């Protein structure tokens, strides 16, 4: 290959996502969209509205992050007595009862990871918005990390759903999911969607055509 790297966009080329036809891109008049000349599928050089969509999903996730931590995630009803636990309440209880490794894990998986995802995506979005050319490779690694660890936060919800399904012993012991669980699931799903709707190619668009 040649020493100077050529991107598809730099070569004014796009690929049809449906039939894989390579097409030449041309400037679009406002209010119009590109279609594949062969199969008619909509063609977009970049994910459409990537920044706006990611911002929208990210803001929604950030809103849900508050009730996810303020409201109880699960309620344990035993002999008519209900005890409700928030995420941080569970962490505190685990640490206080000596199982601090599990408490630390819960703290990391349920509190830190969603926050880092929100924070990391927001930083990426802002860097793209400001057309930053700062360490595009580093930022791409961040993005991949955010995309990969995102699904692991769902672990809490799976555990909770199994407990809710299994522990149904009437008056003896019943586990009921709280408002916090729904909000937490919304945070995880929305941040995953936000990560997907973000287009990492945007990082490289302003990084200069030839890097390294």
């Amino acid at each position, binding site marked *: 290959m040649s020493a100077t790297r050529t991107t598809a966009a730099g070569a004014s080329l796009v690929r049809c996502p449906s039939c894989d036809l390579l097409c*030449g891109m*041309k400037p679009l008049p406002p209010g119009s969209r*590109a*279609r594949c000349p062969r199969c008619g599928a909509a063609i977009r050089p970049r994910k459409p509205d990537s920044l*706006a969509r990611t911002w929208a999903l990210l803001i929604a996730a950030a809103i849900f992050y508050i009730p996810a931590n303020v409201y109880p995630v699960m309620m344990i009803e035993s002999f008519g007595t209900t005890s409700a636990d928030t995420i941080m309440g569970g962490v505190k209880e685990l640490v206080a009862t000596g199982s601090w490794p599990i408490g630390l894990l819960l703290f990391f998986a349920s509190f830190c990871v969603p926050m880092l995802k929100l924070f990391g995506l927001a930083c990426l979005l802002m860097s793209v918005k400001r057309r930053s050319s700062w360490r595009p490779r580093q930022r791409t690694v961040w993005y991949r990390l955010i995309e990969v660890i995102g699904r692991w936060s769902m672990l809490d919800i799976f555990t909770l759903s199994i407990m809710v399904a299994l522990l149904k012993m009437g008056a003896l012991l019943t586990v009921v999911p709280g408002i916090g669980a729904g909000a937490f699931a919304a945070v995880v799903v929305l941040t995953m969607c936000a990560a997907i709707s973000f287009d990492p190619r945007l990082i490289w668009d302003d990084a200069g055509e030839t890097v390294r």
Partner: protein
Amino acid sequence: MNALVDGASRDGGIPEVAVTKQGRFSIIWIIPLIAAGIGGWLAYKSYADRGVPITITFSDGTGIAGGKTQVRYKGLTVGQVDSVRLGSNDTRVVVHATLEKSVGGLARGGSQFWVVRPRIGQGHVSGLGTILSGEYIQVRPGKGARATSFTGLEEPPLIDEDSRGLRLILKTDQLGSLQAGAPVYYREVVVGSVSGCRLTDAADGVNVYAFIEENYAPLVRENTRFWNASGVDVKLGLLSGLDVDIESLRAFLAGGVAFATPDNRDMGTQVSDGAVFTLYREPNYRWLTWKPKIPLGAGEGN
């Protein structure tokens, strides 16, 4: 390669994209709007439903746990304990609890709080449910202005003001074997119970607090006579032989109070809460012959 990069002179191999019209509306912003709506609604709801914080001090905090112990009124959960800690001088347990908003009026001057624990005495068992469910805090609302700080009772209050009925004070010199929970009999039918017994303020006698169930309240009139039906009454007579008189086994164990009301023209008017009677050591034989006709209260059949 160069031919490809040059957009003006494309080879026939790479066609141009077709261009069509596009509607311009980003539906994605509905998601954060919905999130903000749900979040705002939750915030408003927790603001609107925020409970009434109260503080209760007890001398003993056994079984009270933050986040678990409930505050109950008439058997319903009306609040929850948030935290329990020692007071500043380490002599009292300070319980911080939150009452639900709708029942915030339970926290008033004169409101009484006590911990319901299993209590087993002679002829008297209560709080058995708490063996499994754990202790809870019972509240009885007072009549004063709203308040937030209370001193908890160490024992359940003597007179159960929650249940409807007639509360009487019976004065006697000696308690005998009477105890809280002892039955009150009318014609050997249990119509109430003894709530508690206390020395009078001057210690010159004993006040027995009796509770008559609502539908039996009309039986108690101004001229009603009360006597102590505790224990066994053994009479040994030359002609009558051995006469053993026990009102009931429960009365035998915990003591009891019986009363009789004179025939209709002598009975007097119905009494109200707090009426004071003398509690005789034993019945006059004439009292046992009284047969007044008294329609019972509307509560009969409950």
